[in-house]
């Protein structure tokens, strides 16, 4: 006790420099941006922990799962601060991850003050490409992946056409904010339907395999899967399992769409002809 009393004055003055509530807020904000942008859980935890550690408090704990963040700052000099953030819809944005990483690194090395850091995070200029470019890119991606998987020119054109469905579904989803499961399924249904129709009605020796595999390539849960496995191997079993399930759900939605599309098409053409 005596020790504490002796320490208290200069620690209190130390404390005055660190606005601990703002610190917790900053850490939570950084974590939130990174998690929404699709960073791995251990990276988010590490960033939050580093930011909190600069305060020198006794306990700085961050617990992150793919759907939420929990932060606690604990010290005898301050009231315990505890924060919870719930993360909803995610949008892969690697540019934002890089920016937050950069800002937190500069803060931890003492280059930025806490207020500047918070301001920078709050007014982060997000890496944005215009919407039309993204839609165009979805089309080109589908065509190019079909090409690498061994398709000819006709398949590439149809794959590009299939890319339009995904661009459309993304466009509608942005307006409606429903879950992406339905939209992925719907888009891949249309895609499989188109490919099968072209094959049966117009071009019988169309290679379906590279065409469909190439078209869905842009939507495959590569990010979720890689992050899931990385998280699992880092020891975050909860997040790892959650990400794996995320990957499985996306894959299942695509598979369901393709399956129903092909089955529907077969049924339709066998009844008509």
């Amino acid at each position, binding site marked *: 006790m005596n020790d504490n009393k002796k320490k208290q004055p200069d620690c209190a003055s130390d404390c005055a420099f660190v606005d601990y509530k703002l610190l917790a807020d900053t850490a939570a904000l950084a974590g939130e941006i990174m998690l929404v942008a699709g*960073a*791995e859980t251990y*990276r988010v935890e590490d960033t939050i922990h580093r930011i909190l550690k600069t305060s020198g408090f006794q306990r700085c704990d961050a617990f992150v799962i793919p759907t939420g963040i929990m932060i606690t700052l604990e010290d005898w000099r301050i009231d315990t601060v505890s924060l919870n953030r719930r993360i909803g819809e995610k949008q*892969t*944005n*690697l*540019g*934002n*991850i*890089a920016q937050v*990483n*950069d800002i937190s690194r500069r803060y931890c090395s003492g280059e930025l003050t806490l207020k500047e850091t918070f301001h920078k995070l709050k007014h982060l200029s*997000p*890496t*944005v*490409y215009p919407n039309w*470019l*993204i839609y*165009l*890119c*979805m089309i*080109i*991606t589908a065509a*190019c*992946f079909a*090409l*690498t*998987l061994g398709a000819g020119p006709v398949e590439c054109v149809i794959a590009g056409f299939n890319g339009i469905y995904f661009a459309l579904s993304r466009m509608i989803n942005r307006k409606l904010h429903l879950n992406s499961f339905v939209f992925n399924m719907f888009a891949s249904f249309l895609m499989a339907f188109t490919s099968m129709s072209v094959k049966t009605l117009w071009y019988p020796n169309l290679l379906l*395999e*590279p065409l*469909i*595999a*190439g078209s*869905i*390539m*842009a939507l*495959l849960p*590569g*990010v979720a*899967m*890689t992050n899931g*496995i*990385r998280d699992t*191997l880092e020891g975050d079993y909860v997040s790892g399992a959650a990400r794996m399930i995320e990957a499985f759900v996306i*894959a299942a939605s*695509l*598979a369901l769409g*393709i*399956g129903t599309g*092909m*089955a529907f098409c077969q049924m339709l053409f066998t009844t008509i002809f």
Partner: protein
Amino acid sequence: MLLHAVGSFFAVITLSVIFFVPRRFLIHASIAGMLGWVTYIGLMEQIDNEMLAMFTATFFVAVISHIFARFCKSPVTMFLIPGILPLVPGVGMYRIVYYILLEDTRTAGYYFFYVLQMAGMIAIAIFVTDTLVKVLLRSRYLCRQKHSK
């Protein structure tokens, strides 16, 4: 081969735009992706071992991503995620669905495990690279500490 290279290069560059990779890193990410895919295709022609080819290709991508990340001072994820996407077994996933539709569950099961194996190979290659880099950095740090003493 050239066709594969060009195709994967443009595929990864457009994919990086969808993932909002900043403009100055687009080329880096697509070079990583292209080299990975070319390695995979080249190895598949030489040796008849898909798992080994996948492992080597992903290992290659991961090493390149780490090198780029050092040079550009940005997180590894930025190059790694677009880089490995061409290697993600999309054809395998398609085949699972296709054979389920044909009610050939045995072949569907075969492709299910094939996809799991490929995904596992990707993961292990990334993990091995991460660990190697960590060991390297750690040993360099320890060496420096020794010298300063």
